[in-house]
């Protein structure tokens, strides 16, 4: 097992190089460049100044040279400085990470807590009224545009009923509040984005659980367990559920990189200062160092996530172990 893990860990290195090289090339070869975007058609800025800055940022060198330089820096965990504001990329990511992490972790928990029971129950009560109602809502949630749903929530609960703040993560007068008030306003600010993210996020998992559960319930060993005279509860929750949840491990693995990659749409509507907007702004302004920084971190986490789910699989499912 240890040998297997080491081998997999070592395998991450070439994959990481490959992916980073590929994304570096794609970003740099896409039409447009940071400087013409920033200073193009600005009468205050002379073309010479633009050229000089091109040199200063090293954008005049061949792409491969730029990549090698970038890679050398990454090895020392130096992600470079952003083209937008000259600040350290890692600093910028660190600044945004907490807001995204807290929202994503809480919503992930909420999603699992709600989606799995909903999926299981609607599979067990397949084709009953309960099943039909939940299926209806799951499809509704699945097909609803998130920005629209978010705006409706803001309009009703934030604006009309005045129960929750409309946007932001904390009020600007936070420092004048007592610790208890601080905590309460934070919860209030968290509520609407969390609900939006969770309600829309749980539909996929619930449907996944349902279909996987339905498949297991039709297996012969379930029939066998029933024939043996086991109670329905035991059959469903011990024999069926255990097997139905196996594929969920894969989802957990993939959820790990998702934790740091915020949602641009939700963050924009709720003015949430998270990773999604950082990445979006970086992409829109051709801020190569920031794009690559975020890219490499999420690639790394994806690879680790896959590894973790593979290992978990091996632990829980004896059939896979070699």
């Amino acid at each position, binding site marked *: 097992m240890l040998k297997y893990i080491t081998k997999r860990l070592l395998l991450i290195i070439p994959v990481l190089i490959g992916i980073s090289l590929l994304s570096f090339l794609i970003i740099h070869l896409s*039409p*447009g*460049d940071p400087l*013409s*975007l*920033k*200073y*193009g*058609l*600005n*009468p*205050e*800025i*002379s*073309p*010479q*100044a*633009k050229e*000089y*800055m091109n040199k*200063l940022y090293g954008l005049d060198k061949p792409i491969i040279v730029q990549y090698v330089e970038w890679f050398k820096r990454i090895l020392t965990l130096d992600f470079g*400085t952003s083209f*937008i*504001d*000259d*600040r*350290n990329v890692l600093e*910028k990511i660190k*600044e*945004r990470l907490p807001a995204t992490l807290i929202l994503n972790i809480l919503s992930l928990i909420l999603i699992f807590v709600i989606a799995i029971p909903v999926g299981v129950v609607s599979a067990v009560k397949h084709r009953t009224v309960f099943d039909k109602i939940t299926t209806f809502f799951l499809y509704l949630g699945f097909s609803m545009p998130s920005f629209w749903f978010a*705006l409706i929530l*803001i*309009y009703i609960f*934030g*604006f009309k009923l*005045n129960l929750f*703040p*409309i*946007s*932001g*993560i*904390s009020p*600007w*007068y936070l*420092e*004048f509040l007592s610790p208890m008030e601080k905590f309460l306003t934070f919860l209030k600010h968290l509520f609407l984005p969390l609900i939006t993210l969770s309600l829309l996020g749980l539909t996929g998992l619930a449907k996944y659980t349902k279909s996987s559960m339905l498949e297991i319930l039709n297996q012969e060993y379930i029939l066998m367990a029933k024939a043996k005279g086991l109670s329905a509860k035991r059959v469903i929750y011990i024999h069926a559920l255990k097997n139905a949840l196996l594929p969920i491990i894969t989802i957990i693995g993939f959820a790990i990189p998702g934790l740091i990659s915020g949602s641009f749409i939700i963050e*924009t*509507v*709720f*003015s949430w*200062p998270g990773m999604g*907007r*950082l990445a979006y702004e970086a992409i829109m302004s*051709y801020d190569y160092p920031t794009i690559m920084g975020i890219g490499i971190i999420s690639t790394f986490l994806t690879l680790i996530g896959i590894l973790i789910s593979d290992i978990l699989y091996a632990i829980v499912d004896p059939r896979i172990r070699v």
Partner: protein
Amino acid sequence: MSLKPSCQEQNKIIKISSVLRNYKKLNNQAPLLCVAVLIFLLGLTYFTFANDTRFCGDSFVSGDLADARVLVPFLADDTASASICGFIFSGLTKIDKDLHVIGDLAESWDISEDKKVITFYLKKNIFWHDKTPFTANDVKFTFEQILDPQNKSPYGSNYKNIEKIEIVDPYTVRFYYSVAYAPALSKLGVGIIPEHICKNKKYSDFSDSPVGTGPYIFKKWLKNQFIMLSANSIYYEHIPFIQQYISRTIPDQSVQFLELLSGGIDQASLTPDQYFYRTNQKVFRQNFNIYKYLSLGYTYMGYNLKDELFADKRVRQALSYAIDKKRIIQGVLLGLGEECSGPFSKNSEYYNNNAETYSYNKEKAMQLLNESGWHDINGDGILEKNGKKFRFTLITNQGNKTREDIAVLVQEDLAKIGVKVDVRTIAWSAFLNEFIDKRKFQAVILGWSIPIDPDCYSVWHSDNIGGNGLNFVSYKNEKVDELIKKGRETFNTDMRARIYQEIHSLIADDAPYTFLFVPYATVSISKRFRGIAVEKSGIYYNFIDWYVMPDEQKFNFINK
């Protein structure tokens, strides 16, 4: 250091007027006159003995679509950063309500006989926010920093004519220019930075805790959430009445509007749609004022003069006559804009009101086209000349809904005179690199912002036709070239006005652009803020004089 005209003194003036207002109100009810007089007297006594700072106070929360990027004046290249820098820093000069250059940190200045040397006499009682005195050293330091390419200031070329900066004494500084350069006075208005802090600090660090001499002191910046500034009690004019200025980043415009209505922010700019259809609600009317003023920018349709289709001046004039600007303003801005005929601010003395405006005239357009040899010979509705159809491609950048809509309206208007227009929208960077920079376009819809100084060398002088210069329509008129040079060397405002008015009418006559409109800025601000008046430069020129009546103040818990 002395506290300049203080909050208390200023408050007295406002207080008297408020007492008088109360008195007048009561006076309408004759039987209550006695009471009124009594109250008035009481008010007077109160005013005499009271020594509070009631009119100072409250916070102003602005909702902004984007967060600032860098709070260093000479690095700020986006509107959000520039506007926050304006509160924290002051420059040698500034722009007053009538768009004129006046002294800010400079008390006055002299211009030498040959106009190449400008001597600034600095105000003597100015302190940095950390209470260090401000001197000529800071001025010299700032411009040396801008000119040092290592600091990546995009504005370096504005100051490249400076040969030498000399400190005559701690409060006198002299700029030696290699040529006479009139725009210098407004360009030297860039925010001055403190030498004692910046000389051993990286600008990315300074940007996180900027120190200036401006009316507001930097307090706190949570990236992409808010920036908080507080009133500078040693500001040289007087302490700003509003104690905090907060800029909240709210990237979605409809959410911004909901925040405004529910009191989360005090100021938001309105889209034309919101202006007409969302501000009729009672809640809005009761709580907000709307301010409308011309913004400093214009939208135009430019013709590539290197394209033989547009080489004839009469053709360009005809197209200008054929485009119904009123309809475009109505259609895309719901009327929130004004027609314009030249590249200068309509509020300045440089704008020539007698220049040709090309008001909509289909017949005249037809006549001009016929004169220049375009006729619809085969009767297919499209004009021909020498067997060639009058057909061209109009491009604009993707994602700008206003410009895309204008293109469609122009297409419709020109179809009426037999000109076929194909519209293409192209993503911004490809649009710049592949079409504008390479001059591979026929006609384009774009906008320019209007700088405070009328100098238009970079856009209109024929020197900038080549390379990636901004004169991408390749406009060349020797008279205009000469006048632009002359305008740069003339400091006298009246003489400059004559020069630029002439440039305006020459450009209007040559019609390399069809000037379309100057949009209005529409801003709604909570009614509790008083002292706001629309002037030529907008409304923010006197922000430090805005105030809130004591009984209306909302955020007073902060001063406790």
